[in-house]
């Protein structure tokens, strides 16, 4: 037993050295994750700023000017140009010069003063339907606010019922607060899977695997030793991005750190299991890489990282149940934004625990099976 422990420890140390001593693999462990963190953190956002807008205002009244000023003055919009005829609209939208054109008719002010409803036509480039939807939301907020104040000032009755919208956990609806905690899970998954998926193939290719197999190490010992670096590196990278999320991107951290780490360990264990399964099948590093890629791409897309699982077809939604990232993302966002405690996260812990158990034992079985 003591000998076995010594052997496992020796292998774990060797594995870590092998990964960390190589300059190339050190770079691979550090640079792409940092790059991805910044690219995702800064570029991957659905929030819209500086949307180019053209105004076609045929009305000469002060009311229309006020409304236009409110829209153009908002940080979401940016005035591209004033139009003076209808014919200019199509060209601007077609060529993507502007995303929207606001058209206020000649009778805008007079309708407003006479107590009628004054229409504002909004022409939106729908080539990106999500943007088109969001722009309408921004405009509606501005107009609603305008309406309220106009009614108050001009003695018009307020609407019969008013919506008082309060988003929980993220009151300004900042996309970054959603994306950045997700990156912790995303990158931890990528690094853990790749490190473990390639570990056996690398030795097979270098010819060192036979040398390892002729030592008295048993397959299970080799497997345990090989899972260490993935576990450790995954945890380290996850923790580093966690710190970056809190201190660099300033995402609020409201829940329990312990609860988060329970999740992270279970999550990384399941990633190690999957990585080792790939490892036991792959003969070359290329196959290992391909296997990791084949697992990672669907795992990321079908996790709810960027787009919600609820929008997927039902069959695909069922498929996501075996995806450990799906659960860990809920835990991450829960702990960061919702202040979740470990008790409330229990329904997300146990599926990852089951996945880890199944993948690790499968990996062990496949490994032994392949040896013979």
């Amino acid at each position, binding site marked *: 037993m003591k000998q076995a422990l010594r052997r496992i420890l*020796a292998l774990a140390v*060797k594995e870590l*050295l092998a990964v960390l001593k190589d300059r190339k693999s050190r770079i691979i462990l550090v640079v792409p994750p940092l790059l991805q963190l910044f690219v995702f953190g800064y570029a991957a956002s659905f929030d819209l700023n500086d949307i180019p807008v053209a105004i076609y205002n045929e009305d000469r009244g002060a009311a229309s000017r006020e409304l236009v000023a409110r829209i153009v003055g908002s940080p979401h919009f940016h005035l591209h140009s004033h139009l003076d005829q209808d014919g200019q609209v199509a060209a601007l939208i077609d060529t993507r010069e502007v995303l929207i054109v606001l058209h206020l008719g000649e009778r805008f002010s007079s309708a407003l003063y006479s107590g009628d409803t004054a229409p504002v036509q909004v022409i939106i480039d729908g080539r990106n339907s999500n943007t088109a939807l969001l722009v309408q939301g921004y405009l509606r907020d501005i107009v609603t606010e305008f309406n309220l104040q106009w009614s108050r000032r001009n003695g018009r009755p307020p609407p019969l019922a008013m919506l008082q919208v309060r988003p929980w956990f993220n009151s300004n609806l900042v996309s970054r607060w959603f994306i950045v905690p997700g990156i912790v899970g995303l990158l931890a998954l990528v690094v853990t899977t790749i490190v473990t998926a390639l570990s056996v193939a690398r030795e097979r290719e270098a*010819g060192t695997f*036979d*040398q390892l197999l*002729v030592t*008295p*190490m048993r397959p299970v010992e080799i497997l345990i030793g090989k899972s260490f670096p993935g576990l450790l590196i995954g945890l380290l990278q996850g923790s580093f991005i966690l710190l970056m999320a809190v201190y660099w991107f300033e995402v609020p951290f409201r829940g329990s750190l312990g609860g988060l780490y329970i999740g992270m360990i279970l999550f990384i264990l399941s990633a190690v299991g999957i990585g080792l399964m790939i490892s036991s099948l792959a003969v070359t590093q290329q196959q290992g890489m391909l296997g990791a890629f084949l697992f990672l791409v669907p795992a990321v897309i079908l996790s709810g990282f960027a787009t919600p699982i609820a929008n997927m077809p039902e069959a695909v939604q069922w498929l996501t149940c075996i995806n450990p990232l799906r659960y860990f993302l809920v835990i991450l966002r829960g702990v960061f934004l919702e202040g979740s405690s470990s008790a409330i996260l229990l329904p997300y812990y146990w599926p990852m625990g089951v996945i880890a158990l199944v993948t690790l034992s499968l990996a062990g079985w496949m490994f032994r099976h392949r040896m013979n």
Partner: protein
Amino acid sequence: MHAEMAPLPALAIDGVSKCFVAGDKRITALSETSLQVQAGKISGLIGPDGAGKTTLMRLTAGLLLPDSGQIRVLGVDAVSDPLQVQSAVGYMPQRFGLYEDLSVQENLDLYADLQGVPKAERPARYRELMQMTALAPFTRRLAGRLSGGMKQKLGLACTLVRTPRLLLLDEPTVGVDPVSRRELWAIITRLVRQQGVSVLLSTAYLNEAERCDDVILMQEGRMLGHDSPKSYSESMRGRTFHISSSALARRSLQNRVSALQGIIDAVIENEKVRVVTSRAEMPAIASAVPEATDIRIEPAEPVFEDAFVARLKSTAAVTGAWLPPGHVVAAAAGPVIQVTDVQRRFGDFYAVRDVSFSVQRGEVFGLLGANGAGKSTTFRMLCGLLPASAGELRVAGRDLRRAAADARSRLGYMAQHFSLYVNLTVLENLNFFARAYGLDRSRRKRRIAWALEAFELADHAGIDSGDLSLGYKQRLAMAAALLHEPDILFLDEPTSGVDPLARREFWQRINALAESGVTVLVTTHFMDEADYCDRLLIMAEGEVLAQGTPAEMKAHFRSEALPAPTMEDAFIGLIERHAQNKGVAA
């Protein structure tokens, strides 16, 4: 050719230097080298690892730019006009890149297109090449499914698809079994003699030097000599001897003799020990080996190898008391390795069929065969890397089926290619393997200290093992295999690609181990190494062809035409006889 014109050399290299930068290190591959290769001859390029042979070839082919100096190939400047050089030379790199997913014919077509061979000339040329290489029956086969020797011949055929005026061959026979090697040489010789092609080839097999017209001897980027093989060997006349004694086994004799002053080299050759001395006088060894009462010393005919060793090596013995004192493996009751009717199937294919043999304690046992004969499979089964389909394998008294881990703790293993962790340092590698074999702290310390000293690795302890030279890599691999003091040592082509000097040192260590009672099982392509073994097993197509001592094997092939057959003659004879029998049976 007009007599009054001095023939233009095929290759003229003048003051060429070439450095490579690897990381922060600067490696000089060639320094201030000048040489000429005569047209219409075979010039051999010989030297240990890192001599600069491959760099010289690549410079000649216009694939590298020299740092300084001039290279003229067939009168053309290779630096300024590489394309013209490339359309006149044929070059076969060490690993000739055949497209393994193309057939033999498609590979030939590609190179014919690239070399601009006119369509009309092709059928005749192909026929000639296929006949020469005996590949005609396989033109539709994918190159990837040819044997190693056949691939090498196809590579040569592709290089020859347009007859080049200068043929560059970089170690064309490395890793090729003796039968294929002999065929390759026949092709090359015929080309030169019949078509007047000039050939420059490098090789690690010293006995191939004798087949060259000229030998260029290189070391560490410098040329040491350029002469005919005959002149090299003549320079050694009077310094080579055969020593034998019936009272002392040849290995013990060799061990003792090699430690003496004035002896540069001592190797086993047939039943005797071949000795090269530093001066032209009879060695005084009788006093050094008192127990060898009937010692006989007779002059031997010098060969190229003697000159090679004499020029590149100063001392014969592995320095220092190599094995720790008192290192003796306890006597075993029965055979240490016992193989009984072992089979290994891959699907319907029998890689190994009904193989039986046994090896005694302290024996050096050789496993020989052509590429694909099943020796690697047998070897892997013995190491417990591959289970047998049928039969019984016992190693150190344990059945591999039941107590594999236990058996593994008793054996040391050295793989064909360097198989330690290249990005770990020497010390980290040793530390890992010591722990992997479960050595406790004090034993670990003692053994690692021993390994560093005995293999002269102490100065390199902090260097990544991948940066070591091939010779040191091999030392490290052996040190790692010996850390746990195994009773049995498995060596899979341990000297493949290793230069002749490192091979000598390696075998001295093996001999010392065998003397102390360690059992050694070894596979090899070098026939002189087969001679070093106590007993041999020769395999072909998964079956045992012959088993016995080297002397017994050779005795089968003694005839009037061949009064002193070498191990190579015996090996090729056995393979040919087997092929004939198969032909008759079919």
